[in-house]
C-alpha cells in the first residue's frame, strides 16, 4: 500500500524530490510516517503512512471479556486514557442494558474532563515545541503532572488507569481526591491563562499558525472530521451536547469554535478555551454530585466488595465465574460515541450473547482526522507540516490500534 502510494506520487518520470518524514521523527507525534513530494520548499503532495503501532486490538477484543477489553482501550489514546475507557463503557452498557448509578455518572464527567485536560496539555506542550516554543512544553507537562497525580490519587495508576468499570466505578474515590481536585481548579485556570499569554498574541506564533492548514466547514464535514478539527472551522458540534452521556446533560458549558477560520490558530485557541470549560464542568460536578453508590447493584455485572470475597462463598463463586467468562451481553449490536479530546470516539460492538464480543470496531477520531493532512498541507511550506500535524492532534496508538 505504502509503496504503491509512494510510486504514485513519485510519478512515472520520477521527477521532483520525495522526502520521507518519520516514522522516527519527533514532530510526527509517535510513529507517523509522511512521504512528501516536494517542489523546492513547497509540498506538492503528502501521503501519511500508518501501521507502525498496529497491535490488533480489535481482533484481540474478540477473545477477551468486556471487562478485560477495557485495559486495551487505555492503550489507544494513552494521552487521555479516561476518554477511551468511557467510550468503551458507554457502548457496552448500552448493549448490555446496564444501569449506572447517578453518582457514578457525575463522577465519570470528572474523570472524562481530567482526561481531556491531560490530553490537551500534552497537545499544547508538543504542538508549541514543534513550532519552537520550548517553555510552553515545560509548563504544560508540569500542569499535566498535577492531572496525573489526581489519577494516581483516584486509583493508583497515572496514565492507563481503567478506573471505570461496566456498571460504574470499581469503588468510591478515597478521601483526599475531591479536596485535592478542588484545590487544583484555580491552578489549572492560571496555567491555561499562562499558555494563552505566552502564545495567543505572540507574533511568531501567529505567523506560524494563522491561515496555515485551512479547511472549510463543508470540507471538514465531508471528510468526517470531528472534535476540535471540525469546530475550528466554525461548526458547533459536540457529542456531549448532541447526544449527552454520563451527566453532561446536567452541567453547563460552552462549545468553543475558535476563530471559525479553520486554520491551525483557530484549532489552537479553541482547545485553550476547551480546557477552561473542562475546569468549569468539574467545578459544577463537585457542587452538584449526588451521594450514593458508584457501582451498579446488579451482581451479575458488578464486583462484590473485596472483604466479602474472602468470607462469602456466593460472592467468591460469582466473582470467579463473572471474571473468567465475562457477564453475558444479549445478542445484538450497537454503535456508541463520545466526545473524546480528539473528536468523536465510537465503538461498534456486536454480541453473540456470550461474555465476549463477537466483533469490536473502533472509530477513532485521530484516524479520521489524519486523513485531512494531505489536504491541509498541499501547497504549503515544509515547516507547516509539523504545525498542521500538531493542530490535528493525533495519537498513533489510536490510529493503528
Amino acid at each position, binding site marked *: 500500500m505504502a509503496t504503491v502510494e509512494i510510486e504514485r506520487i513519485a510519478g512515472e518520470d520520477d521527477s521532483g524530490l520525495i522526502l520521507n518524514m518519520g516514522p522516527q521523527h519527533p514532530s510526527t507525534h509517535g510513529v507517523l510516517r509522511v512521504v512528501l513530494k516536494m517542489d523546492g520548499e513547497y509540498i506538492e503532495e503528502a501521503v501519511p503512512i500508518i501501521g507502525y503501532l498496529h497491535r490488533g486490538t480489535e481482533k484481540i477484543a474478540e477473545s477477551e471479556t468486556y471487562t478485560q477489553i477495557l485495559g486495551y482501550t487505555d492503550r489507544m489514546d494513552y494521552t487521555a486514557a479516561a476518554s477511551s475507557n468511557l467510550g468503551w463503557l458507554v457502548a457496552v452498557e448500552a448493549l448490555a442494558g446496564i444501569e449506572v448509578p447517578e453518582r457514578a455518572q457525575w463522577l465519570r464527567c470528572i474523570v472524562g474532563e481530567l482526561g481531556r485536560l491531560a490530553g490537551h496539555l500534552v497537545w499544547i506542550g508538543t504542538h508549541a515545541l514543534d513550532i519552537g516554543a520550548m517553555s510552553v512544553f515545560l509548563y504544560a507537562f508540569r500542569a499535566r503532572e498535577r492531572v496525573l497525580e489526581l489519577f494516581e490519587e483516584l486509583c493508583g495508576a497515572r496514565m492507563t488507569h481503567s478506573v471505570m468499570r461496566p456498571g460504574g466505578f470499581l469503588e468510591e474515590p478515597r478521601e483526599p481526591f475531591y479536596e485535592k481536585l478542588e484545590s487544583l481548579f484555580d491552578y489549572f485556570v492560571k496555567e491555561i491563562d499562562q499558555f494563552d499569554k505566552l502564545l495567543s498574541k505572540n507574533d511568531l506564533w501567529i505567523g506560524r499558525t494563522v491561515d496555515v492548514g485551512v479547511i472549510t466547514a463543508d470540507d471538514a464535514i465531508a471528510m468526517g472530521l470531528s472534535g476540535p478539527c471540525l469546530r475550528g472551522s466554525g461548526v458547533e458540534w459536540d457529542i456531549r451536547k448532541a447526544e449527552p452521556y454520563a451527566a453532561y446533560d446536567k452541567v453547563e458549558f460552552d462549545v468553543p469554535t475558535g476563530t471559525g477560520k479553520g486554520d491551525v490558530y483557530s484549532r489552537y485557541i479553541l482547545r485553550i478555551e476547551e480546557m477552561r470549560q473542562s475546569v468549569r464542568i468539574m467545578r459544577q460536578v463537585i457542587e452538584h454530585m449526588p451521594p450514593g453508590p458508584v457501582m451498579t447493584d446488579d*451482581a*451479575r455485572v458488578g464486583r*462484590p466488595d473485596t472483604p*466479602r470475597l*474472602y*468470607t*462469602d*462463598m*456466593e*460472592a*467468591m*463463586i*460469582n*466473582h*470467579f*465465574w*463473572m471474571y*473468567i*467468562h465475562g457477564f453475558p451481553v444479549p445478542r445484538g449490536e450497537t454503535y456508541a460515541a463520545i466526545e473524546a479530546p480528539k473528536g468523536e470516539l465510537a465503538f461498534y460492538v456486536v454480541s453473540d450473547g456470550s461474555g465476549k464480543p463477537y466483533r469490536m470496531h473502533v472509530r477513532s477520531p485521530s484516524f479520521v482526522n489524519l486523513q485531512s493532512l494531505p489536504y491541509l498541507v498541499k501547497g504549503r511550506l515544509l515547516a507547516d507540516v509539523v504545525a498542521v500535524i500538531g493542530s490535528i492532534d493525533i495519537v498513533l496508538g489510536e490510529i493503528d490500534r
Partner: protein
Amino acid sequence: MPVTLTVDGQEVTVPDGATILDACRQAGIYIPTLCFDTFLKPYGACRMCVVEVERAPKPLSSCNTAAMDGMVVSTKTEPVVHAQQGIMEMTLQHHPLDCPYCDKSGVCDLQHTAYEVGVYRSKLGSDNPNEPDHELSPLIEWDPNRCIYCGKCVRVCDERVGDSALTFNLRGFHSYIGTQFDEPLDCVECGECIEVCPVGALLSRPFMHSGRAWQVHQSESVCNHCSVGCQMHVETRMGEVLRTKANPALRDQTPVNTRDRGPGDGMLCTRGRFGYDYIHDDGRVTQPLVRKDGQLEPASWDEALSLVAARIAAAKAEDGPDSVAAITSGRLSDEENYLIARLMREVVGTNNIDSAERWTLIPTLHALGPAAFDFTISQMEQMDAFLVVGGDLMESHDVLGMRMRQWVRDEGKLLIQAGSLPSRQDDRFARRVLRVRPGAEQHLLQGLAAELARQSADGNAPADLRGYSLERAAADTGIDAAAIGEAAAQLAEAGNVGIVWGLGSWLIGGAEALAQAAANLTLALPQARLYPLANKANSRGLAQMGAGADILPNFRSVDDAQARSALGRLWDVVLPDAAGHTLDALMAGADVSVLYVIGEDLATSARNRQQAQALLERAGFVVVQDLFVNATAAEYADVVLPAVSFAEKTGTFTNMEGRAQRAQAAIPPVGEAKPDWQIFTELALQLGARWAYRNSDSVVQEIAAVLAEIPVTHSAPRFAWQEPPALPSVNGDGKLLLVTQDHLFVPGVTGRYSGNLRRLVEAPTAEIHPAQLARLGIEDGESVGIQANGADLTVTAKANDKLTEDVVYLPGGFPDAPVGALLGAEATVAVSVRAAAAEPAAESSSAMEGAES
C-alpha cells in the same frame, strides 16, 4: 408418538419418552442442573431443575418427569427461582472458598449454576468441615469439602464404566464418596468420575494445580493408545501438554444431541486420560544421534539425514534395492505410513516394508479379506450376543469393553468370554466363561462350529466342519464338553452373534488359524459377524496404506498387476513386482544392508527376540526413528532420528472401524524432533525424489486420489478346513504354559514411558495359581526366573487363584520383562519357572522335578 407441550408460552414437540428438561433445552430455555448428565439415567438428586407445571401441586424436577401432551410448564416463576436459589444457598453453605486454587474453577458447573440462578450474597454463612483430601488412588484425588453429593461419579462408574467402584458411604451429614467400606480402589482407573464431577471434588492427581481453565488451550485429537479411536481434547499451555480429556462436545448436555458420539461414546480409559505424560518425559530424544566410535553422539539433522540417505543410496547401488528394509508401526498416522511405503517402493524401489502387524492383523486380513475390517461399533451394538475370544477387551480395548458392558447389562445381551486368562468381564458381565488352555481358542471355535453344524437340521453347513467334534474340542481346550455344548446352544439361540477378538499380543503365532476358525464358525452360524479388532491406533490404517511387504494401498496385493500399474502411474514410476521381505523373512535371515526401524522396539517387543536381535546385528546400518532411545536404538542404531508424539503433529488415524480421524497438532515438536512425515519427505528429497508435501493435508489429498484409483476389491473370505494343531502339554515336566496379553496400564512402546500409568503397576509380575506356586516351592512375591527359547527373565511372582493351574501369565509391554524374548515361532510356549534364587539353566528343570516329588 411425539408429545406437544407448552414451555414458558412456547410450544414444543418432543419424542415420546422425553423429559420436561429435554423439552426445555430443545426450546433453548436454560434450566440449571447439577446432577444431570445426558449419559446417565435421570437421578433427581440436586433439585436444581425444578419447574412449575400447571395443576401439579408443587414444583417438579424436570430431569426425571416425563413430558406429557398438553402440559403447561413455567420455568422462571417466583416459586421456581426461589426454590433454586434456596437449594443453591444450602449447597454453597458447605462449599469451601477454594475457587482461587481449585482446578475446576472456570469450568465448574457449580460456579456456572450459582451465577445463573442468581445467588450473590450469603444468607446462611459458611460452614465447611475442612476435611483433609483423600487419595483414592495414585491418579485420583477426592476432596470431601468440595463434594456436592450429586452422585455423578457413583453413577458413571456404575452405569457407564461398569466397575461400580465408588459408592456413598454413611448417610446424611456424614455421607461421603468412597469405595465400599473404604477398601482400596479396585477399578480400571479410567477417571470417568473425574470427568463427570461438576465441581473440583474428584481430581486428576497428575494434573492437579498445573494449569487454570482460562490459561489452557484445547486441541481436538484422537487417543493414540489403541484402535478404538476415542475422540479427545489435548489441553496445553505454552507448548506443554497438561492433560488429555474426552472431547467435551461429545458430552454436550443437550438431550436431543443427535451428534455421533464417536467410537468411544464420549469416554476415555486409563490410557487415554492419563497416558499422555510420556510426551514430556525426560528420556525423549530431542535431536538426531549418530553413532561415532560406538557411542551415539548428538548430530545435526543435515548430518544425520545425509548419512542415512548416503547409506541407503550406497546399499541400493551395491546390493540392489532389496537390501534396504523398513519396519514401520501402527502408531504412525495414515499419512506417514503412506509416505514410508511410497519411499520404499518408489524411491528405494523395493517392497521391503513391513511391521509387527505381520503377526496379527495381516494374517487375519489374508484369512478373512478386507471385508472383515469393514464394520462399525454401532453395528456391533446391534448384535444380540457376543463371543469374545482371547485377550480381555478391558485390557486391550478398554472403552469398547466398557461399552460392551453397557450393552450386556442394559439390554440383557449375552456375553461369552472365552480365553485362557481371567478377564474383567468374568464376574459380573459374562454369562458364560470358557477358560481354554493357552492357544486353544481356535480349537474352541472349531468345536463350536462342529457342534453347531452337527445340530443344524438343514445340513447346509459344510461337511468338513464335522471333521472335528465337541469331544475333541473338550480334550484340546480343557473345557467340559457339556459347557461347550451349552455355549453352542446359547449362540444358536441368539443367532445374531458378534465374534470379537482383539488382534493383540496373545494372538501372535495363531492369528491366521484363529481367523480361519472364526470364519468357519460363521458357516455354522450364518447370522454371526466377525469383529477382528485392530490393535494399535492405526494398525488398520497401516494396512490400508499398503505399508506391508505384500500389500498395496486399499489392501490390494503386490501381485495384483493392475493395482501395481495404477499406483505406478500415480507415482510416475515402475513399481517393483517381487514381493518384499516380510518381517518374518527378515528375521529368518534375509540379507539386509540398511534397516530402517520406525516406531517399533524390535529388540524388546518383537516375538522371537533372539531372531530380531540377530537381524539387528546382521544389518549393516540400522536407523531408528522413535521418541525414545529404546533398546533397539541404544544397542544397534547407527542413526537415531527423533520423531514426535501424536500431540506434536497433525495426522489422521484410522480406527478399527475404518474411520479416519484427525489428530490436530497441539504443541510444537519437543526439541528438534520432527514429525515422521517430514522426516520421510526430507529423506526422499535427499534420495532424489521430487516430493512436494508441505503438510499432512497435502499427503491426505494424495492418499484420497490413490485410494480412489485403486479401490478395495472385496473377495469372500475363504473357508478352509484346517486340522487344529496339537498343543504342547505340560503334564508334570515342571513347565508351565506362557500366556500373555496387552496390559491396560502398559500400552506399548510409548505408553511404557508414561509415569502416570507406571504408577499403577510398578513392576511386571508373573501370575501363577497359588497351588502351582506351592508346588514349585515359590512364595508369593518372590522373584522368579522364567526360561524358554534360550531367554531368561526375572520377575516377581504373584499368586492368582483365578488362573488355571498349568499357566503362567506374564503381561506384555514391559521393557524390563520383554515377553517377546520367551516367545519363539510357535503360538504356545512352555516355559520353565523357578525361584530366582535357585540354580539357572539346564539342571533347573530336573531340580524342580525333584522338588515336586
